């Protein structure tokens, strides 16, 4: 009978989690900046979520999944691209300027400089430091409120507010600075 219980649990899991797969994929895509990597992260996150499913208590399923996807994304980045990981807790050390691309991508750097699409918003968002990037993505593209963003990213609401403020200031600066409006 144990496998019947397991099967029921899995069906419930799929009903709770799979509707938010697009949201999870979008967050992973913004954090990894790559389609294939985002897919790997989301798959791993779903398996983790299945294992932690007993800790889910009929709450906000989207936030719950996004929290796991976010954690999985950073674990994945730490394993595969350690140079990109910015210490999340050190809020004060990221002054809100748009970071240059990670070390090892100087070619990409040069390419970007020479291309007009440096002004494109998605490129600018991708170059925000991860704590600011995830805040802006969760707010503007997933339309989460501050409480949900705080839940997903594991920081107080005040920090969410200041990260959003800094993210927007950085985006406007980079955007206006390049003469686009």
């Amino acid at each position, binding site marked *: 009978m144990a*496998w019947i219980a*397991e099967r029921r649990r899995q069906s419930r899991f799929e009903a709770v989690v799979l509707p938010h797969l697009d949201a999870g994929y979008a967050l992973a895509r913004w954090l990894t900046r790559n389609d294939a990597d985002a897919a790997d992260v989301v798959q791993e996150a779903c398996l983790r979520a299945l294992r932690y499913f007993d800790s889910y208590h009929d709450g906000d399923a989207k936030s719950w999944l996004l929290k796991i996807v976010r954690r999985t994304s950073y674990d994945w980045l730490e394993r595969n691209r350690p140079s990109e990981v910015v210490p999340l807790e050190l809020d004060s050390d990221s002054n809100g300027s748009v970071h240059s691309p990670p070390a090892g991508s100087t070619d990409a750097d040069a390419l970007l400089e020479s291309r007009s699409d440096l002004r494109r918003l998605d490129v600018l968002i991708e170059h925000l430091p991860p704590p600011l990037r995830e805040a802006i993505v969760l707010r503007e593209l997933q339309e989460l409120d501050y409480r949900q963003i705080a839940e997903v990213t594991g920081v107080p609401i005040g920090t969410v*507010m200041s990260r959003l403020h800094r993210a927007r200031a950085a985006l406007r600066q980079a955007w206006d600075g390049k003469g686009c409006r």
Partner: protein
Amino acid sequence: MRCDEVHPRLDAYLDNELAEPERTGLRDHVESCPDCGPEAAALERLRDEIRNFAPVYRAPDELRSRIRFALRREASASASAAVPRAPGWLAYAASIMLAVAVGSGGTFLLLGDRQTDAIGAEIIDSHLRSLLGTHLTDVASSDQHTVKPWFAGRTDLSPPAVDLRMEGFPLVGGRLDLIAGKPVPALVYKRREHVINLFVLPASPTDHGETLTRRGYNLRHWDEGDLGFWAVTDAAPTELAEFERLYRATTKG
């Protein structure tokens, strides 16, 4: 309100995160202030630009089925770990079926080959799981040109997916299942209200032309070329034999 009080709260104001007295205070200020007004407008413009022009990423279909499959494998791994400890209702059901089978002249056979026996048991488990859950089919279609290509890339085994609707066995779709830890295609047919799962594995040396009855389910196994077919159902043994005959005749031609 002074500008230096308003400025740090502009984001929260535009994000609709301020409680009422403060919100009205900010709105009044923003509407009248020559500095904060344009500042708020610029922030709104940025927000609109992001929402309208940033790429919208969606999980590809391929990822969806990959995840479904990985989840199922995970669940069946923990489930099969649990099976040996499962309470005895299956044995109980089997003993009833044995009694019924013996009483009715006996189609209940014991298999000598332990490996075949294990696969047969697993196939019946998978059949049961497919009936209980929400995933009888991954691809629901009676069109062989939809079902067969769906398996390509998901498994090495490519079964002929013929619709036997005219013969009374309509094809309802296909599913990826797990037998002996390997992904295998399962074709799903119906016989009136009964489901027939046709699992396709690599051919094995043992071939059984008899209908085996396990836990009340009927199982037939035959090989065709390098594919081994395992058909399982709760429809009558004669109907399952008829299904095998039709399927083999149609796929040969």
